[in-house]
């Protein structure tokens, strides 16, 4: 007699895009006319169809040729005019339209979103009235592996719409830089980078982000996420847009460092996202 019940988690899916692939997939968000100021919230999904346990946010169409396009996107839950922050400060700048390489930057989170939830987003940027397109995918139904209920961002600098600047090492690792202290116990960590502040060109290369504490890399969080950066400083996750499950206690100052495939001497924006 078989007693094992096969695991069939996250078999349901919904998204805010459908049909033939298009450069307009997702929902456009527009920042304030005042740089580094959030614009109006745009609804992504009016009412989610099922209890979701895995959330993927994909951002595209923020780059402009030879221009610093630093930007941050927030995801909210809740009714119009009563939204509550769900996923803060996603690094959103320096991403092209989906007809190009370096076209999308995806963020994956094991995050519970109950059925019937309204989801929305907004953006701020170094440019006035900054725009982006935000795609969201929800996975759920059936049993699930662990999913958290909140996301914290460490390393975002909202006054500049960017992350914390990390100078990549080359043959050696770069130096660890404090990104911020966790408020809650993180059980999942995702790293991300966008462009740089110093100019609008770069070496076409690959960089890897390590997460550490106290100057030491955390176990299994070396090369947490790996990114391609092109000569126009467009960047996107190379190997995976998924983070790793981990245990980082509340109150921990998390650090980041970068190491590059080639010579990159200018600092690159980075941030990490912890799920609790």
């Amino acid at each position: 007699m078989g007693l094992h019940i096969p695991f069939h988690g996250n078999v349901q899916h919904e998204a805010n895009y459908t049909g033939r692939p298009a450069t307009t997939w997702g929902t456009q968000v527009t920042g304030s006319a005042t740089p580094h100021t959030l614009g109006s919230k745009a609804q992504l999904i009016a009412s989610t169809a099922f209890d979701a346990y895995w959330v993927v946010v994909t951002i595209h169409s923020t780059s402009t040729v030879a221009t610093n396009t630093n930007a941050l996107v927030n995801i909210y839950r809740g009714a119009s005019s009563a939204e509550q922050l769900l996923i803060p400060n996603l690094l959103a700048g320096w991403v092209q339209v989906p007809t190009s390489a370096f076209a999308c930057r995806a963020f994956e989170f094991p995050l519970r979103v109950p059925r019937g939830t309204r989801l929305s987003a907004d953006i701020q940027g170094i440019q006035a009235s900054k725009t982006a397109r935000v795609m969201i995918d929800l996975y759920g139904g059936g049993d699930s592996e662990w999913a958290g209920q909140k996301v914290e961002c460490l390393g975002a600098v909202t006054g500049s719409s960017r992350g914390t600047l990390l100078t990549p090492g080359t043959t050696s690792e770069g130096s660890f830089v404090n990104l911020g202290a966790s408020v809650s116990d993180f059980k999942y960590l995702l790293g991300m980078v966008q462009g740089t502040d110093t100019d609008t060109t770069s070496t076409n290369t690959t960089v890897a982000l390590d997460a550490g504490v106290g100057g030491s890399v955390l176990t299994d969080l070396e090369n947490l996420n790996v990114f391609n950066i092109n000569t126009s400083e467009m960047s996107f996750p190379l190997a995976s847009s998924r983070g790793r499950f981990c245990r980082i206690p509340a109150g921990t100052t998390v650090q980041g460092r970068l190491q590059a495939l080639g010579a990159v001497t200018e600092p690159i924006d980075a941030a990490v996202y912890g799920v609790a």
Partner: protein
Amino acid sequence: MAISVPYEQNGTITGTEYSLVNDGTTLQSVTDDGAYQLWLDLSALVDGDEFLLQIKEKVEAAGTQRTALSKTFANSQGNDSHWPSPTLILVHGWDMTLTRISATSRVIAWSIRKIA
């Protein structure tokens, strides 16, 4: 083995860590052995709320009580507003606590079921 419910209450959870065993903010070190399961009624939570659950126990009788399981509950819980914990064998000095992390206190009901 009998099933019982030795702890069953509701209370307003504030920013001070609250012992569900004691129904108060004086934390406990219970040595009543058993297999225990916590149930929470989180239906009062709304978007923007955040509460932290901690289940604590000693590994050795002479050891120090530390957190064995922590879980964040954030925002409205939707359909699944009743949350059952794993069943844990608790022996040496345990407690189960809730702490409000966000701004607004909420009334949360709980029961701790025992097999012994």
